[in-house]
Structures are given as structure tokens and as C-alpha cells.
């Protein structure tokens, strides 16, 4: 299935105020890959993600989803292909109840009746949130909000899942639940995060952004072994790879 392929080609983005958030980004992601985009605050991660389903358009360069460049004509299809989970779930849950929120996308796609019902409950089931269907979003905990936000995207059956800092602000249990969930998806995935332990578990490949360019791109384990590289990009080895401070045991 070719439309799982994302190609980013010499992407550059300058915000209206003159900030050059992305300078020259190129990479491609193939079917079923799970890729982390990491980097310090302000490295341009969110800016990059917003290009992937056409919320920002490149100042120069091009993005292709399944070999088709993103433009006005292909935008509706691209947005269906690329499911975007935003950083703040409050931005994503805007309907009065969880059910209506998850149904929002499918309704826009023209689903109704039995099919809609199945689609919504299926999506809620996958994130273990069926019991929340009738609740109002403001009554949910952060972890529940995050899971439901993912369900709102899953209900549109995207081919590629894009998540901006999914584990941000979660307690250990909710975080673990989310990681298990992410590992179960066999979509192509792009995840940004500062939670490098999560990255290590979920993504086999990592791209480091630094100052608007791709500083490194390779297998996650190799990248996390490169101390000099991490330090240069203001990152720190995931805890699970550091030596144990108590027993002095060596990390992986």
C-alpha cells in the first residue's frame, strides 16, 4: 500500500514573523515504520508535524504522501490518510460528549447509522475507553483525554498516525497504558517526544532535529548510544540506558 509512504523533500518553513523554524529537512518514511522526531524545545518538531497534514505549507520544498505532493486539491485525502493527534487533548476534544467527538470525523466522511455506531465503538474499544462514551470531555483525566483524542483520529481509519508529545503530562500508569497502545498500532507512526524511554520502546528509528535541520537519522538504539551527539543536541540518554546510580550496574 503505497500511501503509507511519507517523503519530505528539502522542506523549509519561515513563520510570518521571520522565524526560520525549519531550514532544510529531508527524509522519507516507509510503510509500517515507527519513527520518533526528537530535539530540544524550539527545534521545530511541532512545526514539522503541522506540515504533514497540510496545516502549514512549506516556504520551499515539498512533502509527498504516497508519492502525491500535498496541495489544495489533495488536502482532503491527505488529511484522511494522516491522522493527527495534537499535543493538548483539550484542543482535540471540542464536542459535548466523548461519543460525539469520536463520531465527528466519521460523520464528516459521510458515515451514518449502524456503520457510524460500529466505527465509533470500535475506535473507543481500541483505546479502552468505551465506558467514557457518554462523558463530557472536561470530566476526563489527562490520561483518558489522551486516549480519547487518539480514538477521535482512529475512527477515521488513517494510514499514518502522527502524535505530538503523546506521553506529556501523564502519570506512570497512564503512560504505560499509552505505550502499550502505541505498540499495538501497526500503522506508520511519527511521534515527537521528550520522553526518550518511550521512544526507545515504541520507535525503531529516530530523527534528531536541531536548529531546523536533521542532525541525525538512524536506528534509535544507535542514536541513543552516541553520547556526544545527544549532548550537542541538548538531549539526554534515556534512563533505561544509563547506569544504575544505586548498584553501579551498567546500562544497555
Amino acid at each position, binding site marked *: 500500500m503505497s500511501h503509507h509512504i511519507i517523503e519530505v523533500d528539502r522542506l523549509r518553513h519561515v513563520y510570518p514573523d521571520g522565524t526560520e523554524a525549519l531550514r532544510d529537512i529531508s527524509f522519507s518514511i516507509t510503510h509500517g515504520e515507527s519513527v520518533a522526531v526528537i530535539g530540544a524545545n524550539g527545534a521545530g518538531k511541532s512545526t514539522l508535524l503541522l506540515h504533514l497534514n497540510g496545516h502549514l505549507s512549506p516556504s520551499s520544498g515539498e512533502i509527498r504522501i504516497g508519492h502525491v505532493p500535498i496541495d489544495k486539491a489533495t488536502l*482532503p485525502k491527505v*488529511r484522511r490518510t494522516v*491522522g493527527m493527534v495534537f499535543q493538548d487533548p483539550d484542543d482535540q476534544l471540542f464536542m459535548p*460528549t466523548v461519543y460525539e467527538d469520536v463520531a465527528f470525523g466519521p460523520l*464528516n466522511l459521510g458515515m451514518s447509522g449502524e456503520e457510524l455506531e460500529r466505527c465509533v465503538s470500535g475506535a473507543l474499544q481500541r483505546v479502552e475507553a468505551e465506558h467514557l462514551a457518554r462523558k463530557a470531555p*472536561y470530566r476526563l483525566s489527562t490520561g483518558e483525554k489522551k486516549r480519547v483524542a487518539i480514538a477521535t483520529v482512529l475512527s477515521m481509519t488513517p494510514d499514518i498516525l502522527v502524535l505530538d508529545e503523546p506521553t506529556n503530562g501523564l502519570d506512570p500508569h497512564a503512560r504505560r497504558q499509552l505505550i502499550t497502545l502505541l505498540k499495538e498500532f501497526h500503522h506508520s507512526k511519527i511521534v515527537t517526544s521528550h520522553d526518550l524511554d518511550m521512544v526507545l520502546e515504541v520507535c525503531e528509528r529516530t530523527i534528531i532535529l536541531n536548529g531546523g535541520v536533521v542532525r541525525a537519522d538512524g536506528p534509535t538504539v544507535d542514536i541513543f548510544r552516541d553520547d556526544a551527539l545527544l549532548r550537542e543536541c541538548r538531549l539526554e540518554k534515556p534512563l533505561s540506558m544509563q547506569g544504575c546510580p544505586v548498584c553501579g550496574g551498567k546500562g544497555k
Partner: protein
Amino acid sequence: MGSIAGALLDLKRLDQLAAGDSAVHRLDARAKVLATLVFIVSVISFGRYELSGLIPFFIFPAVLIAIGQLPAGYLAAKIILVCPFAVAVGIFNPFFDRGVLVHLGPLGISGGWISCVSIVVRTVLTVGAALILAAVTGFPAICRALERLGMPNVFVMQLLFLYRYLFVLTEEGGRASRARELRSFGRRGLNLSSYASLLGHLLLRTWQRAERIHMSMLARGYDGVMPVGHTSRFGVAEMLFLLIWSSLCILLRLNNGAQFIGTLVTGILS
């Protein structure tokens, strides 16, 4: 900020009540919205000196509270909250309108006092009706009902968003205000400029949030028209409810209910 947060907590309580499951809860929201409208119009269309005619209208809130199993004390407390406004509106009437209208033995009651009390009673009735509507229907369902009754989609969306983000916004506002207080070390004084910047900040954040919400709507195929979900039916129960309710309202409006009941009772007794 504390009081606003408290008021919002109460909004959430109303929402919780709306999740109940009684005969009135189950009715289609349109029937309840229309019936409430009829009720409110009947109440406010009475002449300014009318008082006895208003009293029988208390039957409606009483019946709905009973059937809907609503906490009467809580609703009464909410209604009392708005009473000062009604008193403020009516309080000058006694001074301007001194013509004696009613004689209670040696005591002459002026038209001003009567119209003042009438304003308060009407406020209690209409605010009570609106609160009860919210408590047995829920705000989102009311919006949807208004849409199906012909209100433009754009207004409905506005109302829904307002409702949804009121909570988020007040939380943000509460946090910002707390942060300000913590750093002003108890100096209350004329800190207008810091309030202004706080407000500006909130406005900016609201704007940014609106942009992000719009983005996430677009990401899910939004094209300017809010999709309509599953719909409930306007059936026989709704028809009956609306019919009985509004004919009673109109009857009580056209004939003075208190007198009517009075003559009925004396008629039976004699």
C-alpha cells in the same frame, strides 16, 4: 476568581442532573424547549400589577422537580442568587407609584409595591423554568433542539463551543490569577495594569486555542458545516407533553388561575 470557579462547578452539577433518567429527561429536547418558551412568555406577558394570577404557575416547576427528581433546595439556592437583580430592578417602583391599589384592612398597599413583588415573582418563575430545563435536558441538547427548531448552525456551534471552553478558559484564568496573586504578596491595591495584561494574555491564549481547535477540526474533515449525529424523535409523548403544558399555561394566562381555583373550591363547598 473563586466565585466564578464556584459558579462553574454548579454548571457541572446541572450537567450531571441532566444525565438523569426520568420521564421528563427522556422527552425529546424540542418539546421541553418549546414548552418552557410558552411558559416564560405566559408569565412575562401578565400586566405589571398582576400577582395572584402568577401564583398558580408555580405548579409547573413543582411538578417537574417531582417527576425529574431534581434537588429542589439546590435549584432554590440558584434562583435566590439572581433575586437581588430582580429586586434592584423593581425597588424604585414603590417610590414612583404611590397610588393605593389594594386595601388589606386598614393597610393600603400601593401599586408600586405590588409591581415590585410581581417582578420578583416573575423572575423566580422564569429563571426557575430555565434552570429546570437545563437540569432535565442538558445544555448541549438544548442547543441541538434549537438548531432543529430552526436556529442557524453557526449560532448553535458558538453556543456549544462557549459551553465547552468555558471550563478550560476559567481554569486558565484561575491559574493566571493565582500566579499573579502569589507574586503580588498580598498588596491588593490598584493593580489595574497587571490585571489588564492578565486579561490581554487570556485573550491571546483564547485566540491561539481557537486556532488550534480549528486546526484539529479541519484535520478531521470539517468543511464548515457541523455534522448532525443521531436524532431522537418527536413522538406522541412529546406531543402530549407540549400540548398539556402549553394549554394549561395559556388557560392560566387568560383566566386568573387563583380566582378560578377559588371559585371552584367555594363552588364545591357551598
